[in-house]
């Protein structure tokens, strides 16, 4: 008999207002909490959601408040998958955007570390984007503490 894999899912949708950056990361962190992550893992999740949503607002919608940002999160066993999507202007050169310290908006004092942080904190990262077609960031992370705990159950 195979053990059934725990599954859960959520979707958030909100306008591209910077006020919603903290709302998004806190909501996703609360959702992920059911896997009993460590504080470090939770902080990683909050940080990457913050980076991806901020990218959608600043770069996707270029500060316009009338865009829609969608955040989806799923739990499958011990893995959390998070997607952040916008219908904004898209990324012309994804390789360049991923480079540490690269920013298309130096005048805004952006550090250019967003994607580097996402790739470091998550186990898998995928960027799907084209000019005029918006951007979708897919990320996945295994919650280690849950795995270790499962060994004892």
């Amino acid at each position: 008999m195979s053990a059934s894999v725990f599954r859960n899912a959520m979707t958030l949708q909100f306008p591209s207002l910077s006020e919603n950056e903290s709302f998004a990361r806190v909501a996703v962190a609360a959702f992920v909490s059911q896997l009993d992550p460590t504080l470090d893992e939770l902080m990683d999740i909050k940080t990457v959601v913050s980076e991806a949503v901020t990218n959608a607002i600043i770069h996707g919608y270029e500060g316009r408040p009338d865009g829609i940002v969608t955040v989806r999160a799923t739990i499958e066993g011990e893995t959390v998958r998070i997607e952040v999507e916008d219908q904004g202007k898209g990324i012309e050169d994804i390789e360049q955007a991923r480079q540490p310290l690269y920013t298309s908006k130096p005048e805004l004092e952006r550090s250019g570390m967003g994607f580097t942080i996402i790739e470091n904190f998550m186990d898998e990262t995928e960027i799907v984007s084209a000019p005029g077609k918006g951007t979708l960031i897919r990320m996945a992370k295994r919650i280690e503490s849950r795995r270790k705990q499962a060994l004892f159950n």
Partner: protein
Amino acid sequence: MAFQIELEQHRKALIVRLKGELDHHTADLLKARMEDAIEREGALNVVLSLRELSFMDSSGLGVILGRYRQIAAKGGRMVVCDVAPHLVRLFEMSGLFKIVTMAPSEQAALAGLEVAL
């Protein structure tokens, strides 16, 4: 969840104490307050106290780098203190420790600046 900034003009440095969550939404406020204090009060060195900072992302790194450039242009130095472990990782990743010193406390940060001057 709110973000608060406390500024104190010390003899050797401008002490900036951050509380709450520093992200893109709150970064502009920090930029304006620090820019103003550095220009108007003529602050040369900055001690950034992060003891009560519960969250920071790359938007915070951007503002810190910007203020570092502002004081470095005048020969000033920046010290960060009471940095939580997850923020240490963020700073390491961005190479910030190549230009900014880390100290365990505000007192140690100020003492470090005394010795160096």
